[in-house]
């Protein structure tokens, strides 16, 4: 289980976020690192995050979207605290500096937190030109050369064929390549 970092200084009772140690929030610094971290997370936590996200959105793919530059955030959990009535909280998971933290907050709080985060990046980008480009190239490195769909499908099928050729393969009833021999 990842250790918890008091990023928001919530324990102090105040909500002023501390200055980030690095001028750049390098959240896109390592795609693979983030992947590695997720795989170390408690799967139950991850699942609940996904379920909260997908329960009120219609899209086929998983979780709620985290718009990068759009300030109208959409967080699809529970309700809000209004008129003294406390609504349910949901987990907010934050990846920062190689650690993962999970907080249970109401949607409104979560929105505020994320807005703070966005603002911190925005301010630091204006301050540092050179680092802006660095952030940018790192960010653009997450734009891999995508493959043509037809070739992608062919390469996947070829992989399946190789698996079927292996000495340890046991054919099942729904093997595609046998069906091509059927009349």
């Amino acid at each position, binding site marked *: 289980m990842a250790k918890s970092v008091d990023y928001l200084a919530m324990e102090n009772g105040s909500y002023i976020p501390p200055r980030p140690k690095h001028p750049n929030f390098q959240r896109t610094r390592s795609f693979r690192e983030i992947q590695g971290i997720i795989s170390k997370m408690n799967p139950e936590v991850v699942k609940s995050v996904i379920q909260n996200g997908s329960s009120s959105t219609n899209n086929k793919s998983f979780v709620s979207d985290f718009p990068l530059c759009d300030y109208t955030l959409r967080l699809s959990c529970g309700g809000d605290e209004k008129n003294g009535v406390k609504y349910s909280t949901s987990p907010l998971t934050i990846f920062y500096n190689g650690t993962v933290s999970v907080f249970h907050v109401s949607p409104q709080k979560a929105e505020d937190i994320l807005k703070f985060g966005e603002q911190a990046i925005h301010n630091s980008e204006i301050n540092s030109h050179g680092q802006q480009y660095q952030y940018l190239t790192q960010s653009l490195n*997450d734009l891999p050369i995508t493959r043509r*769909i037809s070739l992608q499908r062919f390469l996947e099928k070829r992989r399946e064929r190789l698996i*079927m050729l292996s000495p340890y393969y046991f054919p099942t009833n729904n093997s595609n390549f046998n069906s091509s021999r059927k009349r």
Partner: protein
Amino acid sequence: MEETNSKKKINCTEGSSSSGTGSSSSSGPYDTVWECVIPYVNDPRDRAAASQVCKRWYAIDAITRAHVTIAFCYSVTPQILSRRFPQLESLKLKGKPRAAMFNLIDENWGGYVAPWLNQVAIGSFPKMKALHFRRMIVSDADLETLANSRTGKSLEVLKLDKCSGFSTDGLLHIGRLCRNLRTLYMEESMLVEKDKEWLHELASNNSVLENLNFYMTELTQVKPGDIELIASRCKSLVSVKISDCDISYLVGFFRAASSLEEFGGGSFSLPLQQTNEGVFSDPFEPYAGVAFPPKLCGLGLTYMGKAEMPVIYPVASKLKKLDLLYSLLGTEDHCELLKRCPNLEFLEARNVIGDRGLEVLAQFCKGIKRLRIERGADEQEMEDVEGMVTQRGLIALSQNCLELEYLAVYVSDITNSALECIGAYSKNLSDFRLVLLDREERITDLPLDNGVRSLLKGCDKLRRFALYLRPGGLTDVGLSYIGQYSPKIRWMLLGYVGESDKGIIEFSKGCPSLQKLEMRGCCFSERALAMAVLGLTSLRYLWVQGYNACGDGRDLLTMVRANWNIELIPARRHFVHDDERGTLAIAEDHAHILAYYSLAGERNDFPNSVRMFDPSAFRNT
């Protein structure tokens, strides 16, 4: 349309022959000549110019224009088209951005054929015979509407090219009712297979089919008997490209298809496993009886491996077109095969062909006109170790194959001298596309500024150009060269070029003919992009993904103008399941900008992931 002075001066007799058109009597001998000439004027640019001479010529063009390609379906409405060209015989429409072919556009983005087919079905185009839809959404209901209309009865060509949204139910209507079809084309379309009846319907009702294509579709229930029936009933059958169907079952088909010139698809089964006695059966044996038709000159066989390759040898020397994209050949196999194809004009292969394969081409296939080299698998063990194309192969190719008109290649390494060589030798090149793969960390010779300049200066017939590099691949100076030396280029795809806003601004001062620009992974700000749009005088379509998006996008206001639609697909991040690693991963989709001229106003069929750019949102702030 202005009347020309010369027309006003003419006082010709009313009765002058005007090819029996019975049209306005104030025309003269100039009109008669023009009416005789215009059937031979087919280039749309020439037609467009002619139609602006005067009202009369505009009218003649309007009623004689036979074919129109609408490069982006949202630039105009079906009603406008039917008013402008009511006698249209052939229509080609393109929908989704090209990026859709690379999985970058949501399925429900748009590009519906329904409004167009409805216009056709109500009889707005009484002479319509050929419909070609590319990257559009087609439903079964659309196909049913078409099949039941008067146009459907006389339709000769239907191409659903990389379309989606329909199933074999829709094809049933087509097969049953469109009995005049010469061409049914569905290559790479994503359709749902409900049963195999559609092919049988087509076979039973059609005797004039010339081209049948459902290559690279997921149709698995293909009965060889139905294909053979089509071959025996349709004596003019010239081109057949199908989905997976074992080649050994097509022996009867090949015998019946006596006029066949092109075949693609089929498949080769997995080699049989070791039998109990420990003897491997010969994988070629089931295919020894396959004999291709006598006129066959185009071939592409799916899952063809080294053992099955000899099936091509008897026809190799006649081949003009060869598709090895979906074969299972190594570098050496490519070399063996290509040596036997001296008449090859069009080759498609993955980069497993390697530099050695290109050297074989350079030696044996000097007449090659079109070469497309696609990206193979990334994993080392899945492709041949030699399976990389670099400057070595390109230099050999360009120096020896002087007929080259189309070259598209994914390279693992590149130098300026290779590009200079292409510029020096490939004088017939009209379409050049180069993608630098991102596997190798070090590239021999970057930036490519000088090579690109030499290539553009040397290949003066270039109309289409794509250059996809990496940071450092092309400086701002290099980007300005592209602007300076591309007088005739109409379409460009640029990836990871330039270093700063200066680059794109300089670029936009040139490219006088550039109509369609696609860019990816650029460091340009929204302000620079908007200014570049204003600088590119012929630009009518822009697509960008991955740019320096800072702020709320208000800098795009710079390019707001009449009839110019601006759509945004905001950036998103979402969790996806990474099948390869079996874990969760964050996928990052960078924002898109899509901007285009349109006479149709803003569209209203866009999904939630798309946002129309709204200038009024910035007015109060």
